[in-house]
């Protein structure tokens, strides 16, 4: 979509990776039966009190610092009052007047160009419970069922300025954000943690707010729908209304919310059950020292220090656990380009295919080292490597065993020569096509050799040998 005047601002919520909830000791993960991880506080029972989790605050401070935000000397929490069945107290404890961070930025790469998205504010708040709509969809159900296990789970909200120009940019931004959170060790990309956004979208006229979009894909979809809706309105000579809309992931559309919810007056007051929090320099500095090298810094270093291509460096850096394995292995003196190619190539490909992160797979450092050694010693081809990785990603298997089991192993040059002989003999017509200038005919011949060798031949070697033999 290349609309000139598209402006998108996001308010994105990421779950902070604490053991206990933001204001009570209930665990954030574990028993998934509904309403089993709840207590008087996260159920909002009369007489209960919030007790703030120090670790969540520290994570917020780190996020703010990593996004280059200004940190206040002192901050506090507020009550944002609105009624909703998933909100036990009918107010949310969040940050209002003084959040943990303001005025930061995120730099990301778009079509190999750097782009900076300005961050308005970073704040910490509690998540509400989860609703199930019974007897219909969100707007037509008879009643709702509520699970408050999620109630009180700490969230970090990142609010951008309207710097994003397209749904694709928004998606890239969210990926970047989740990468940064992952590097900081404050976010679990593997669990059920989701990334949820509200988006402000304008296409030249008034802006509309679309609430409640979950995940990368849906953000792109919702934004695409909303932009199209606004553009179509204008085409028909109608104006975009300033309004709040909800995203319905089932239909992929946005719909206006009830006016009562649009006009909500949150009536913020200071949360009187919590104290103010002074962000003393010594505390903030200690936390800032714990901030690791961030994705864009690491990528730049990989390119400079290891002469990796930008693409290879980016692929490795998009998964924090992969960077750890990468650095560990090359510190053991292994061949940098082989390690980088295996990780950014076949490993990444297999993980993407299975839609998992490295940490969720069975792949570990020792297994990668074995594969690297096999490739380096020319025992297997790159293609073999991919076949092994496919097998060891989901099941805990030894690469050596897979290699044996599948009869994999690089073919010697003698054997290649023999196979080339055979293939040339059996495909005289294809050879002739090639001699007549049909370049792609050579691919066909290479394919034949790969077939004969059951994938064990090195395709590049096969291609070179074939070419030499035909052309001489």
């Amino acid at each position, binding site marked *: 979509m290349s609309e000139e005047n598209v402006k998108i601002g996001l308010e994105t919520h990421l779950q902070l990776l*604490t*053991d*206990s909830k933001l204001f*009570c*000791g*209930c*665990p954030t993960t574990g028993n998934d*039966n*509904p*309403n*089993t*991880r*709840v*207590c*008087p506080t996260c*159920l909002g029972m009369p007489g209960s009190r919030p*007790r*703030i*989790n*120090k*670790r*969540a*605050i520290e994570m917020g401070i780190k996020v703010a610092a990593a996004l280059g935000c200004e940190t206040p000397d*002192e901050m*506090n929490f507020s009550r944002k*009052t609105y*009624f909703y*069945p998933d909100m036990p107290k*009918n107010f949310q404890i969040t940050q209002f007047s003084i959040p943990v961070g303001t005025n930061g930025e995120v730099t990301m790469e778009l079509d190999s160009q750097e782009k900076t998205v300005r961050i308005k504010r970073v704040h910490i708040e509690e998540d509400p419970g989860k*609703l*199930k*709509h019974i007897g*219909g969809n*969100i*707007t*037509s*159900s*008879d*009643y*709702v*069922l*509520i*699970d*408050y296990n999620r109630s009180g789970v700490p969230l970090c909200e990142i609010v951008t300025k309207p710097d994003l120009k397209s749904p694709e940019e928004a998606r890239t931004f969210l990926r970047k954000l989740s990468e940064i959170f992952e590097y900081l060790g404050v976010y679990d990309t593997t669990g059920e943690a989701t990334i949820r956004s509200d988006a402000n979208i304008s296409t030249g006229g008034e802006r509309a707010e679309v609430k409640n979009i979950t995940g990368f894909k849906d953000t792109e979809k919702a934004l695409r729908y909303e932009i199209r809706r606004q553009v179509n309105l204008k085409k028909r000579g109608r104006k975009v209304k300033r309004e709040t809309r909800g995203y319905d992931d089932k239909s992929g559309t946005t719909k206006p919310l*009830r006016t*009562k919810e649009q*006009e*909500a*007056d949150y*009536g913020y007051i*200071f949360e*009187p059950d*919590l*104290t*103010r*929090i*002074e962000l003393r320099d010594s505390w903030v500095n200690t936390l800032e020292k714990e901030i690791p090298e961030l994705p864009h810094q690491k990528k730049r270093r990989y390119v400079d220090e290891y002469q990796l291509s930008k693409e290879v460096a980016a692929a490795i850096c998009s998964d924090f656990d992969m960077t750890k394995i990468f650095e560990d292995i090359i510190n053991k003196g292994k061949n940098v380009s082989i390690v980088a190619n295996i990780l950014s190539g076949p490993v990444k490909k297999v993980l993407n295919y299975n839609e998992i992160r490295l940490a969720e797979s069975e792949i570990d450092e020792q297994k990668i080292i074995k594969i690297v050694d096999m490739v380096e010693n020319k025992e297997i081809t790159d293609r073999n490597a991919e076949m092994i990785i496919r097998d060891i990603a989901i099941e805990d298997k030894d690469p050596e065993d897979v290699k044996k089991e599948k009869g994999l192993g690089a073919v010697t040059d003698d054997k290649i020569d023999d196979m080339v002989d055979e293939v040339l003999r059996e495909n005289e017509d294809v050879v002739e096509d090639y001699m007549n200038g049909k370049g792609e005919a050579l691919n066909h011949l290479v394919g034949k050799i790969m077939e004969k060798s059951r994938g064990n031949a090195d395709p590049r070697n096969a291609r070179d040998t074939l070419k030499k033999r035909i052309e001489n």
Partner: protein
Amino acid sequence: MKNNELERIASAACIDLTENEKKGLEEDMENILDWFSQLDKIDTKDVEPAFHPIDIKNEMREDVVEECLDNEDVFLNTENYEDGFFKGPSIGD
């Protein structure tokens, strides 16, 4: 205070009021707000708001998991539950 102001507050407070109650409240609130206006005279320039009467700060809890509520206690005070979930009114009209 205008009549729709009262409606707006009642809506924000999520509370049904009878016509009689509205009438009474309108009068009461006008009197009370009028009484509040004496604060306008007090100079509070350069005065920090006192969120608490005493100076307390940086009270925080370590990130430690504690025991949750027994499941039977969770639903002890309601009949509106189903399959381990609380039951509530719908979002739509």
